[in-house]
């Protein structure tokens, strides 16, 4: 047992830090630190910088542009990226549909889609959830009917993150109504510019526009846009969701936020002294730091285990990551709320624009607190995670 990084790993971390320091546009970093949303252009610009460096799709197989890093190197890269902070690669393309395509897609699909995902020539979004199908995803109703060499797609998806920017969607559609619910689903990809696709924004409680409803009305899609086999879509969806086990803890994000909390709490005064000198506040902050340290170690255990024994058999500790990771993220936003206290109140309807220099640093704290309630809901709610632990780990 040795929890220290090797000399090579430390050198690698330095290389990554140095690259971020020299290449992340300062304006992007500042916006992330302040919890602001980035414009599409800002994100794409950064991802192309990463891709040019060869770090756009780090965990993909080498033949498709991956790095061949060890699991520890991937961990270090993600940690440094999150805690710098710099925008993470667009998950829908890089972590979700990309691996499905290179694992289950045909040669033509790999050639056509993979390079465009890596360079974000196409912005992808995810068509999974539906109004009646949240945690019970397999009950989804959107249909794809085969007509000659085409699919005709009808139905509705929801919670589609950043669909307003998207060029492409990967979609779970019911292709066999008579099969058992998990069996009759196919994984189909198509252009968001297709006739019959309508995107309607959903405004979330923070006032932001991250998610959307997407309607399909007789959308015609070439048959060859089916990934893998017909009616095997559920298997691909499970593969996709199981792929990103460790990133979900977002330890680096919370680390960065805790650093910010310490800095702000040293500046803001309450009761004639900086907030950080209030023992009650400081102990809450410290308790959160300890929880995060424990989570970081738990994550490292999972990472080291995967490096040694492969991804086949997940380490039982991996199911802890989502639950604790989301709870800690939420706690950090609560601590920020405590620091600003009554100054959380002003609501800036255009807060999202992020270009208004007159807005001070408090502007995004309350929205970020409201917005972060999502992290224990998405990606399999924490209640679903507890179901997974009790069944898969404890055998209940």
């Amino acid at each position, binding site marked *: *047992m040795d929890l220290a990084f090797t000399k090579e790993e430390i050198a690698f971390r330095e290389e990554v830090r140095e690259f971020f320091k020299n290449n992340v546009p300062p304006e992007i970093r500042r916006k992330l630190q302040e919890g602001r949303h980035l414009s599409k252009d800002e994100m794409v610009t950064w991802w192309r910088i990463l891709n040019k460096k060869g770090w756009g799709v780090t965990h993909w197989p080498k033949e498709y542009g991956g790095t061949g890093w060890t699991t520890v190197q991937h961990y270090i890269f993600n940690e440094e990226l999150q805690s710098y902070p710099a925008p993470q690669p667009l998950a829908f393309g890089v972590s979700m549909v990309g691996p499905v395509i290179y694992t289950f897609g045909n040669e033509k699909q790999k050639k056509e889609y993979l390079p465009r995902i890596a360079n974000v020539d196409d912005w992808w979004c995810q068509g999974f959830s539906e109004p009646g199908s949240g945690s019970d995803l397999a009950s989804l109703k959107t249909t794809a009917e085969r007509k000659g060499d085409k699919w005709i797609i009808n139905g509705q998806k929801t919670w589609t993150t950043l669909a307003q920017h998207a060029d492409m969607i990967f979609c779970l559609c019911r292709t066999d109504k008579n099969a058992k619910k998990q069996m009759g689903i196919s994984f189909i990809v198509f252009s968001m510019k297709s006739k019959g696709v309508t995107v309607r924004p959903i405004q979330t409680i923070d006032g932001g526009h991250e998610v959307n409803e997407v309607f399909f009305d007789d959308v015609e899609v070439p048959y060859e846009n089916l990934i893998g086999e017909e009616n095997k879509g559920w298997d691909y969806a499970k593969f996709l969701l199981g792929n990103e086990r460790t990133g979900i803890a977002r330890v680096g994000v919370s680390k960065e936020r805790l650093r910010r909390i310490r800095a702000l709490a040293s500046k803001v005064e309450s009761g004639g002294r900086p907030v950080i000198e209030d023992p009650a506040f400081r102990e809450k902050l410290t308790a959160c730091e300890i929880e995060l340290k*424990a*989570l970081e170690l738990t994550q490292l255990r999972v990472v080291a285990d995967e490096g040694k024994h492969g991804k086949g058999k997940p380490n039982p500790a991996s*199911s802890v990551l989502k639950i*604790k990771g989301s709870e800690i993220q939420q706690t950090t936003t609560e601590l920020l709320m405590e620091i600003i206290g009554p100054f959380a109140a002003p609501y800036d309807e255009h807060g999202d624009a992020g270009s208004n220099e007159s807005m001070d640093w408090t502007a995004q704290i309350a929205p970020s607190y409201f917005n972060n309630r999502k992290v224990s809901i998405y990606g399999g709610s924490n209640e679903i995670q507890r179901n997974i632990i009790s069944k898969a780990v*404890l055998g209940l």
Partner: protein
Amino acid sequence: MDFDLSEEQRLLKESVDGLLADAYDFDARKKYMKEKGGWSKALWDKLAEQGLLGLPFAETDGGFGAGAVETMIVMEALGKALVVEPYLATVVVAGGFLRHGGSAEQKAKYIPGIIDGSKTFGFAQLEKNSRYDLFDVVTTAKKKGDGWVIDGEKFVVLNGENADTLVVTARTKGGQRDKAGIGVFLVPSDAKGVTRKGYPTQDGLHAADITFTNVEVGADAAIGDPENGLPLIERVADEARIALCAEAVGAMDESLKETVEYIKTRKQFGVAIGSFQSLQHRAADMFVALEQARSMSMFATMASDFTDAKERSSAVAAAKVQVGKSLKFVGQQSIQLHGGIGMTMEAKIGHYFKRLTMIENTLGDTDYHLRRVSEGGGLLA
């Protein structure tokens, strides 16, 4: 970075787990607790035979030169089996003082008796008003000729009634809460002026309140610098806390296993109660608490070799916070999920709960250590 045990460590784990599986089921434990002093000398001899009592000592002192990971392995196993024998007091604490502060003569005099199982120790540190502050010492050690005279009262000294030798913290100068002027002394338990009042503890161990009245010891009784012993005391206390974290992880691990097994078999309303989601989610939360504690136990184990004492203490305190929170949750919920049977002395589960509860209050509880980390500037700094 590697969390796996080495081949040798794996073998150690197998052998200690195997020994306790054979010799330390719940009925055997009850039997041992009824023996003289409340623990089994025969079992202690078995631990000695397998080399477990000599693990951390240098090979030149007759030991195996094992490190913190090996102690973690043993303590976890002891926690799983709810072992009542005085491993912590003798091997970890007294052994720690001798290893880190003992002179060549002291090592030669005391370590062989620990390794062969013939001698046990007690750590006389807690005082009426000291609570968890190791530097809060009223007991005095006054110079007399070449030697020392010790006067004072110590409480809840684990294994204090049975110990052959007591390791005593005493003030050589300064006031009650001065950090300088504290020494550590080896005092034979049968020395003139030592009065011991022994009693069982809540978790089935034994302890004693001990009065020292004009107890005379030689110059060779002092371990390390008698006027500046606090850094040594803090180091050994940290090692004891690390060991307690590992013991707690072992006890929580077993506690969760027993609980899951119970709710799989206990039937109400015609079904196993483990089929109810409210109980499943509770068990899942217990698993989360256990794994977070396990991670911090590993972190603390690694920290025992940190050269910077402040960094070490902060890491160990953080681990004690996490383990303290986790053990309270796992311990309490284990009883809750067992229902009525969990309330009985006959069921093993309550004994885990009691041991876990006492671990929280040994060498600093959760709030105490949280305050320490907080006042030290947090954990990220």
